[in-house]
């Protein structure tokens, strides 16, 4: 795979510089806020570091959180490539978790090598369907996917709550949750003694697979063409509606896989108190990665580190955990805000270098 070429093609020097600078800048602003609140900046950041990369266990935990971030980040990025703003990764993740949990505890008597794949695929399909619905609505009625994916989130999160507390409730449990999945549906751990599971490997495979689909297949070519210029896609004989539905289905499938991974590799059941938030952070992750599948990895890792390190940071410097959220918010603001705005209002991106913009014109 000509990874290098793709990076050269799509990631200019500024594409790397700007995210880097915005991370640094937000850490600096975070430092100022910590200082202003009377806490020790050094202790806080040391806590953040140790909480995310301090020892083997925290590193493994960071990768545990990186896993769903990669998958949901890829989901949102894939939607972006087709010109779609999938805010619904959260709901799609829930759909995947629900389906995987159900298969995991209800289908008995299957060997591991059959039960686990079925549970995973069920998660992907459930997420895919949940994504495809707003895709279909957009294709057929023009209804904006942002509104519909948000609505689909609400529906799925409530639906999960209802199902887990009613038909799927494990009556023996002290808190509302589904029954435990069977051992035959477990995603195995990668290293004994650590919670890091094979979902991480699946996420890495997904990165390569999504890269391959986007840049090496007909489907990917169509999806990217639709994302960049719908008129040209139509001119070239591509079916725009089909691509909208397909892109949303694949996007939803990735988020569904994230949900399945959380259930099959980590929780082994689906509690009513299941809160992920991954699907929302994923929007920032995809933006930070500029929708490049490979860049989703470091971007997801950053989010995971911030999420995991926050606890120790709070303890060490006695500051509020909200501060980490503030830092995250700044990272998003610096890199993504202009992109979000441009995207939502379909404003053509202007070139960073004034010259290119100036010379690019009618008849030039």
């Amino acid at each position, binding site marked *: 795979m000509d990874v290098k*070429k793709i990076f050269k*093609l799509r990631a200019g020097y500024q594409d790397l510089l700007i995210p880097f600078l915005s991370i640094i800048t937000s850490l600096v602003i975070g430092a100022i806020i910590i200082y202003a609140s009377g806490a020790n900046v050094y202790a806080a950041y040391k806590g953040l570091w140790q909480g995310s990369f301090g020892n083997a266990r925290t590193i493994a935990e960071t990768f545990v959180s990186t896993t769903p971030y990669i998958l949901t980040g890829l989901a949102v990025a894939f939607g972006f490539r087709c010109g779609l703003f999938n805010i619904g990764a959260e709901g799609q993740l829930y759909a995947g978790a629900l389906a995987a949990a159900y298969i995991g505890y209800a289908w008995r008597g299957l060997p591991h090598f059959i039960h686990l794949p079925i549970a995973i695929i069920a998660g992907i399909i459930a997420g895919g369907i949940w994504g495809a619905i707003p895709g279909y609505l957009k294709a057929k009625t023009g209804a904006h996917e942002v509104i519909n994916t948000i609505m689909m989130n609400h529906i799925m999160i409530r639906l999960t709550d209802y199902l887990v507390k009613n038909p799927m409730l494990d009556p023996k449990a002290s808190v509302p949750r589904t029954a435990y999945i069977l051992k035959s549906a477990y995603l195995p751990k990668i290293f004994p003694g650590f919670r890091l599971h094979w979902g991480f490997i699946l996420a890495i495979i997904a990165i390569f697979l999504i890269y391959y689909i986007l840049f*090496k*297949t*007909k*489907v990917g*070519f169509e999806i990217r*063409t639709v994302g*960049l*210029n719908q*008129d*040209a*896609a*139509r*001119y*070239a*004989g591509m079916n725009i509606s089909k691509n909208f539905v397909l892109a949303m289905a694949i996007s939803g499938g990735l988020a569904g896989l994230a949900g399945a991974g959380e259930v099959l590799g980590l929780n082994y059941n689906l509690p009513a108190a299941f809160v992920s938030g991954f699907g929302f952070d994923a929007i920032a992750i995809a933006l930070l990665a500029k929708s490049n599948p490979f860049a989703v990895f470091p971007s997801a890792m950053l989010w995971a580190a911030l999420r995991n390190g926050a606890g120790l940071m709070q303890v060490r410097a006695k500051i509020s955990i909200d501060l980490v959220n503030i830092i995250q918010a700044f990272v998003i603001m610096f890199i993504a805000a202009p992109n979000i705005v441009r995207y939502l209002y379909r404003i053509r991106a202007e070139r960073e270098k*004034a*010259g*290119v*913009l*100036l*010379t*690019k*014109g*009618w*008849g*030039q």
Partner: protein
Amino acid sequence: MSKDNHMSEEILSLKGVVKSFPGVLANDHIDFSLKKGEIHTLLGENGAGKTTLMNILYGLYTPDEGEIFIDGQKVIIHSPADALSHGIGMVHQHFMLIPNMSVCENIILGNESKKRGLIDEEQATGRIETLSEKYKFSLNPGDMVKDLPIGMQQKVEILKALYREATVLILDEPTAVLTPQESEELFEILRSLKDEGKSIIFISHKLKEVLEISDIITVLRDGKAIGSVRPDQTDEGHLANMMVGREVILKVHKEKMHKGKPVLEVNDLTVFDRRGVSVVNGINFNVHSGEIYGVAGVQGNGQTELVEALTGLLPFVSGEVIIDGAKIEGDNPREVFERGTAHIPEDRHKYGLVLPYPIRDNLVLCSYYHKPFSKRLALNFPVIIEKSSKLLKEFDIKASSILDITETLSGGNQQKTVVARELGREVKLLIAAQPTRGLDVGSIEYIHKKIVETRDAGCAVLLVSSELDEILSLSDTIGVIYKGQIVKTLSSEEATKEQLGLLMAGILEKT
């Protein structure tokens, strides 16, 4: 034109300016000098380096080498603000206005005069009104820019420079976006500015207007200044030679037509535009193999929708279209493509190209899905690369490689990319809409040659153009379209410009 009033003092000069971009030498030791009260034209094909040179003068680029003198003093211009402080104003090829702001706000932006910390809009409005009146701009400072037609927006840009008291005005291809009437108006304004002693650098690649408006013309080619001539010492042919660097055939050469069987048959076709208005009203015509059928008409008589319907972009309301003997369903671009139809679309940025793609991907934009360009689900890159490299060479697209981003190509090379894709395979029918709009002389010549070659190879060609000269020089048969119908068909030998003009205006009777 008075050529001898106060035009002796040199107010600005560039000496030995060099500017390179990765892979291109955009400006190669260019000398340029501007005198007070003159209109000095920079003429050159797209990509010759005109905009680059002006961006250097305006402080947007730093030259690699070379010096700038203003009033005999050597200066270094770091930014547009610097340029303005030296009295240089620029109207860019692409306007730099903010659509959601008023004319007044746009003009004062970055140059607000303040009263107790607040923008003194009243004073600004007053000044804008005075200026607007003086130059007959008829601009209303309160109007929103987004509501103004392009021609007016351009005036806002000019006024913006005048408001900042520019004495040297740079206009980068101002007429590219204007109608002939608007261009005339612009020229009036330029003349009155000149009479007032302002100096103007006018950029264009259109020969006729350059001869009309300039006091002196400097020709750039491939980043070099080829020479300067006065309009009374030259003519279109000579300028074209200087621009392109070789003898340019402004006239199209073509052999006698060998007309074959009909390839495109259009019977009683009715098409609605996107608002549901009937714009093609039961049109009838045939195009035969070996024939160029030119559709002449004033813009807005259904040409655009006719082409879109024939190429599958708009559905038929009624009537039938037969391509190569078989009826087509319509509303399906791929169906038309698979019948061996090539389509050069009117709007190449909208339909013809995906600008952020490398050239390679645009060259297979329509054929990517079938063998040998893909195998089952995967794209077959070795074949795609081989084919696109071949097309790049064959159609003389100027780019460093097939991986160059299409957006960075000049308009002419972008259009060549479209033409290469469409004609780089076996075709029976070519539908070309406004194929040379906005292109430079060299590219126009090239595309005309290709269209004639296609016809000589036995293809049927439907040419739609609003350039009457283009229709007359290329077509074998001319159909005049008026209100969505062909009102007259005539052979190009018998057609005259005057007669076509009258038919296009709906004045001559149907026959």
